[in-house]
């Protein structure tokens, strides 16, 4: 059996059982810096093998995908879920953006099954990081006087947040350095990747369990949303994958990206951009429900959907 989800379970159970196991804060930061850089580098290296210009139409479509998802999520949350504009917008932004770790788990799923995928998919991961967050913020600000919004601060937060800098920076370095330039970095950034991912999932299990008590107060609607929304997004992602001509493996990755909700970049950006939103709500949805749902059940489910759509 694959070891990765087991680490999440270990962390989750340990915390529920009130063990004193903790991942020190700076180790957590070190692990995320590593994961973001490694994924960026990997993507950049693959990009160096491609004709980057030829990817432009696909890239544009992916940006649109990232903007559509929060536009769908927002009215559901606001109208159906009766959440105020700020919270609805913030949650929508989390689901428009992506989870790097969920992506990594999906890649691992494909590799373990020997399914091929477009190796430049991390480029799309980078592209999908921002637009969802941006749309979420815009949705929150639409009620207020748009001239009062500090656009500079906001775009700074979106484009220069550390996740973005590491992902995009890694991508660009990988692109410039190319496979030959990256070869000496492989033992650190590629060979250790899956092991580090396990440590990160252990930590995510701890964090998710520590937030789990919020489930009781969050209401049924939020839990249902956090399970149904990813499936809807995965469907949209599957359609997008078909439209831009991805392989089944690539389509699964795009569907998973669409289905995943950010819990690193988005919370940081939203806290500054939409202070009115309660961060507890979006994190409970994204991390306590959607994240484990995706890595435990979602990915196999999306795989079935994608196979069906690809007619295989």
């Amino acid at each position, binding site marked *: 059996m694959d070891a990765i989800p087991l680490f999440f379970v270990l962390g989750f159970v340990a915390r529920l059982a009130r063990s004193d196991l*903790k*991942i020190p*804060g700076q180790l*957590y*930061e070190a692990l*995320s810096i590593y994961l973001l850089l490694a994924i960026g580098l990997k993507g950049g290296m693959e990009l160096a093998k491609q004709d980057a210009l030829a990817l432009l139409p696909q890239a544009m479509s992916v940006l649109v995908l990232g903007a559509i998802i929060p536009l769908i999520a927002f009215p559901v949350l606001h109208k159906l879920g009766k959440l105020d504009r700020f919270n609805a917008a913030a949650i929508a932004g989390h689901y428009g953006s992506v989870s790097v770790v969920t992506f990594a788990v999906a890649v691992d799923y494909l590799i373990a099954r020997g399914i091929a995928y477009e190796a430049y998919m991390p480029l799309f991961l980078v592209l999908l990081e921002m637009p969802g967050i941006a749309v979420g913020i815009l949705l929150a600000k639409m009620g207020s006087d748009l001239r009062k919004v500090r656009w500079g601060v906001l775009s700074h937060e979106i484009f220069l947040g550390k996740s973005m800098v590491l992902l995009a920076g890694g991508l660009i370095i990988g692109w410039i350095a190319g496979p030959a330039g990256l070869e000496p970095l492989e033992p650190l950034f590629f060979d250790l990747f899956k092991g580090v991912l396990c440590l990160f999932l252990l*930590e995510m299990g*701890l*964090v998710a369990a*520590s937030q789990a008590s919020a489930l009781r107060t969050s209401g049924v609607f939020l839990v249902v949303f956090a399970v149904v929304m990813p499936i809807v997004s995965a469907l949209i992602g599957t359609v997008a994958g078909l439209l831009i001509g991805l392989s089944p493996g690539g389509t699964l990755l795009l569907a998973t990206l669409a289905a995943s909700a950010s*819990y*690193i970049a988005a*919370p*940081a950006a939203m*806290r*500054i951009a939409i*202070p*009115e939103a309660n*961060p*507890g709500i979006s*994190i409970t949805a994204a991390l306590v429900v959607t994240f484990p749902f995706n890595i435990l059940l979602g990915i196999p489910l999306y795989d079935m959907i994608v196979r069906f759509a690809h007619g295989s």
Partner: protein
Amino acid sequence: MEAETHTPQPCKLVVIISEAAIEQSLADEVMQLGAHGYTVSDVRGQGRHGARSALWGADRSIRMEILCDEETSLAILQHAEKTYFRHYAMVAYVADVGVLRPAKFKHQR
């Protein structure tokens, strides 16, 4: 030149405990309000907004302490209240302390 004395002179110490997300803005604003410096440390804790255990990014808190004159201390407290108390996990207090070189912490208005 600073006036130096050898017995402590009264000065105010403002302490603000809040979310790590606002560290940078808070620091900028504190300086704008007339402080000449500040000190920050990483903390964890619990309050009205529940536990903030610094387990991960969004969960980190900071403690900022500022030595300043009374006027600035009030300005900082009131600014913090106006800007952050509503939407952010935050507590703030002020204490009377003594410093050897009070001029260092006085705002030139």
